């Protein structure tokens, strides 16, 4: 089973076209293995990205160094998965 320990979901508040372009370039970087839940297309919409633990530092540094505001929407994806699994087990009991 694939684990998501330490993976976070970041909500990025894009403010300019230039920031959109920068985020789009992140999307194309296959090494980071980012999972875009909402893609960077408009400055009216947030961008949600699941960032694997191994890429977190790179992505956060990238956002901060480009003055792109973000918040951590999900602190640890695996914690949520574990909670959900426990809930499912309780339901099945």
């Amino acid at each position, binding site marked *: *089973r694939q684990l998501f320990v330490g993976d976070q979901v970041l909500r990025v508040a894009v403010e300019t076209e230039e920031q959109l372009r920068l985020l789009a370039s992140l999307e194309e970087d296959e090494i980071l293995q980012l999972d875009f839940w909402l893609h960077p297309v408009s400055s009216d919409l947030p961008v949600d990205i699941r960032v694997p633990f191994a890429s977190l530092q790179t992505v956060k540094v990238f956002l901060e160094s480009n003055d792109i505001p973000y918040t951590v929407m999900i602190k640890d994806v695996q914690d949520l998965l574990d909670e959900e699994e426990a809930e*499912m087990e309780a*339901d*099945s009991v």
Partner: protein
Amino acid sequence: RERGSKSFNFAAYHTLETIYQWMDSLVADHPSLVTKLQIGSSYENRPMYVLKFSTGGDNRPAIWIDAGIHAREWVSQATGVWTANKIATDYGRDTSLTSLLNKMDVFLMIVTNPDGYVFTHTSNRMWRKTRSRLPGTTCRGVDPNRNWDAGFGGPGASRNPCSDSYHGPSPHSEVEVDNVVNFVQSHGNFKSFISIHAYSQLLMYPYGYSCNDVPDAPELDSVGRSAVKALSTLFGTSYKVGSICKIIYQASGGSIDWSYNLGIKYSFAFELRDTGRYGFLLPANQIVPTASETWLALKNIMEYVRDHPY
């Protein structure tokens, strides 16, 4: 205990096997209304079932509803289960639904991507795509909502087989998509095509592959706004309405663009209740509230379709 449709726990997420068993019990409990049709098999050879709600007649005008084309959006499949039960149990009690089913058939596909759904239960909870293999890459699966023959391969879909929005090698390359396409085309009398997804609370109409307005955009917008108004009466949940391209992002190869271009005017896609705070892990205690509010919107659209034949 959950094999009986009356004792099923709708406030929990279930495996494919349990959902398929429950479908049999629903059919057994409502034999004069519900039938289960197999429209084909998935890439890994799992059956693909559609529930047909019909009071008779021959090839009546019909409404298509599918859920779970993106495997990880679990509240979509769970809403499909709840909705199937709601249609079966409200027929004969709810005057409006009864009049609808006396005129039209409803086809509901609860798990449109069964391989992906099983994979989310067994290996990777965040899986979205199909599980097909392609020569030349170790990455598996195609985004089945980028694989339809509607602006295929255009903006908003990836050429990279490792991407979660990979469009696939050709239109309808995914057997799951092809099965639905063949079924809808051979039926030939669908008047509405509704696809249920789950993330960020939207009700969308075509196009996704183009940002140009479809000819019916004003009417679809008005129907959509009326539907989300009905939806919000239950818990105040707020939805955005608009074309895919204008309210979320340009995305080519989507199912409702295909259905609209086929001539099915009332084509819509839902993104159900999910603020993102839980990602695709909407707590199970929100399944029934989500399904209940969605039903109000679905019913609103279906009533409009019934009352506006074309």
